[in-house]
């Protein structure tokens, strides 16, 4: 999509490729490439032999489909009934709306203009049925138009590929000598019926032909755009504080959500000031909700951030991140419990302190203590990674290991005395070492290994001490000692 509106020059052969069974194959080619003989479906290496200066980019099928879905909604400007057709087409049911643009011909010109302003080249056709429009748009003349009873004449000269059949059937029809749609129409129906009686829709030229001629219904089921859920308060005169209006707005919004059986994840409070300026505050929840009291409480400290200016006279509350939410019964006795749910608690904490302050640690498969734990969102789904804990780990871990000053080093084991936080600690007992090597696939080169010891001092304080590196390991000077955690 970064290419949109930024097409490569016309004299450079460019193709889009996708993965095939035997290496990449051509997904689409531009006009210059088609002229030198590159065609879709062939292998990229073969086409490189034909055209050495071929430029290849990979196709983004999912992105194309998403863009086409957005275009479906964009095309509602011409008619209210639009739908995506396969991976490369749009069907617009313009019945009764063409006169708004001055007839069908003028409407096609208008559509082509608007689409080209978006950077899209389009092939357009008007026809009474879906199938006829499909064939005319792909194989017919530019801006083809087909009246209700002209389908036989307009579609007759088009190739049988225009019948939306699969490749095997097209090949079969070609071998039978039926190369155009008109030829298929002229064959006595009975003889074709005998051959294709058991074939499905995609392999049955008769059913496809009936669809083209309008004898077999092919309805357009339009995609419903999600309704906008919004509550608004129009005020008689400008005010400076939206707080008194919030409960009613939340109530109104939650009623709308309840009617559609949905909950929202995000709320946007917008105030429209008298001087024409707009100010807004957003809050988010960790799970879909439609509880007005809870939504109201999320705004508790946030409305102060609205700059009222000279006052505002319109407040809107807009819900987004809408998800389906079923009604649940919380207890069988009737009545309601006023307890806060866990999701609501997390929302309140995140709304007040920011989402980064509320986290949940999860274990990760790594021996390096800093990487053995990851912080994820408090209510996120966890991937259950099989983490096996074999060694004893301290209860507390310092974010940054604190270096100690060694007073009395011994050849092996931890130092007999060291100074940490300006206090002398005498090691009475120790366990270890546990050697943790650097992860070469993540760490910088020359990261030193660590030897961890659990040491206990004379007062009973149990610390997790480590030596970074070895003597004369060629990665720096003498090894240093750090405190990394505390045992219970």
């Amino acid at each position, binding site marked *: 999509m970064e290419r949109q509106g930024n097409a490569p020059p016309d004299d450079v052969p460019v193709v889009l490729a996708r993965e095939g069974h035997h290496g990449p194959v051509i997904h689409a080619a531009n006009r210059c490439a088609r002229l030198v003989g590159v065609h879709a479906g062939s292998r990229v290496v073969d086409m490189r032999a034909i055209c050495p200066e071929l430029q290849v980019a990979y196709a983004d099928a999912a992105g194309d489909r998403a863009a086409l879905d957005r275009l479906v909604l964009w095309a509602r400007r011409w008619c209210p009934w639009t739908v995506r057709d396969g991976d490369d087409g749009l069907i617009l049911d313009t019945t009764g709306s063409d006169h708004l643009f001055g007839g069908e011909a003028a409407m096609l010109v208008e559509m082509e203009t608007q689409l080209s302003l978006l950077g899209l080249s389009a092939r357009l056709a008007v026809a009474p049925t879906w199938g006829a429009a499909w064939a005319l748009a792909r194989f017919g003349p530019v801006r083809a138009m087909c009246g209700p009873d002209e389908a036989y004449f307009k579609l007759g000269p088009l190739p049988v590929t225009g019948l939306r059949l699969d490749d095997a059937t097209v090949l079969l029809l070609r071998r039978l000598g039926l190369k155009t749609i008109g030829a298929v129409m002229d064959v006595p129906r009975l003889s074709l019926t005998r051959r294709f009686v058991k074939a499905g829709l995609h392999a049955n030229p008769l059913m496809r032909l009936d669809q083209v001629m309008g004898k077999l219904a092919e309805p357009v089921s339009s995609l419903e755009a999600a309704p906008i859920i919004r509550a608004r308060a129009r005020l008689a005169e400008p005010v400076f504080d939206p707080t008194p209006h919030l409960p009613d707005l939340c109530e109104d919004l939650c009623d709308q959500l309840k009617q559609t059986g949905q909950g929202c994840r995000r709320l946007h409070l917008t105030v429209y000031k008298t001087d024409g300026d707009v100010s807004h505050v957003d809050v988010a929840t960790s799970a879909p909700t439609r509880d007005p009291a809870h939504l109201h409480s999320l705004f508790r400290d946030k409305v102060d951030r609205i700059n009222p200016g000279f006052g505002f006279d319109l407040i809107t509350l807009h819900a987004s991140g809408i998800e389906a939410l079923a009604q649940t019964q919380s207890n069988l006795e009737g009545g309601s419990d006023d*307890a*806060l*749910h*866990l999701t*609501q*608690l*997390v929302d*309140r*904490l995140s709304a*007040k*302190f920011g989402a980064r*302050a*509320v*986290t*949940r*640690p*999860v*274990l990760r498969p790594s021996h390096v*203590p800093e990487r*053995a*734990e990851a*912080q994820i969102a*408090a209510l996120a789904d966890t991937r259950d990674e099989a983490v096996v*804990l074999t060694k*004893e*780990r*301290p*209860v*507390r*871990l*310092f*974010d940054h290991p604190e270096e100690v000053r060694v007073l*009395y080093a*011994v050849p092996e084991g931890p130092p*007999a*005395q060291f100074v940490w*936080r300006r206090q002398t600690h*005498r*090691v*009475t*007992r*120790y*366990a270890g070492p546990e050697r943790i090597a650097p992860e070469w696939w993540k760490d910088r080169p020359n990261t030193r290994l660590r030897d961890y010891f*659990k*040491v*206990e001092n*004379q*007062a*009973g*304080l*149990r*610390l997790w001490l480590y030596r970074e590196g070895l003597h004369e390991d060629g990665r720096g000077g003498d090894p240093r000692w750090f405190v990394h*955690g*505390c*045992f*219970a």
Partner: protein
Amino acid sequence: MGALRVNKRLAGQGDTPVSMPHTLSEVFPNTPADASAVAFALSRLPRTTAPVLWVQDRLSRKEAGRPMLAGLPGSRPVIMVDLSRASDVLWAMEDGLRCRGLAAVIGEVWGDPQALDFTATKRLAMRAEAADVPCWLIRRAASPDLSAARDRWRIASLPSAPHAHDPQAPGAPRWSLDLFRSRRTQPGQWVAHYDRASDRVDLAAPSRDRALDPRDGTAGQRAAG
């Protein structure tokens, strides 16, 4: 023996562990880096798989580190809240105590901030009792001023028990516990043995009559001695 029976009930591990509702308790570690208070508070929590809300202020996190999941007993999920001010910690704890879905609320406050006065602790205690969620306040570098906490503990690490297999290594942790104020039971002092595998604390009256065996606890005398 009488003290031991009382304390078994107090620990929630005796024959009738349900008799006491959950409430607010305070722990004062002897030194800031002492992690025994954390392990003690965790060992007292009910054995559920519900998450624990753990609120830390900035200084506690900096001076005493953060809880390490791999080292915590059991496999409870933990929801960490990292804040900077003590008043925010109290706000978050109070909000957490409204949620009955939590196993416990643990807060760490450094020093004696203005916000942590008698009223604040009273609010926490009443919330904890209303929701029946245990609440633990770990206060480092703090003086035990006026507070409404129902149980107030002082805790310090002692030299650990001898290791079963390695005389040179520290064994199971031992703590000196001092319940210096309690609304529910008699205050007292004990030596606690903590069994990490079963996450269980065994209390014993301190043996003040005779000194510990000099070889006990420091079996592997080292050159620095």
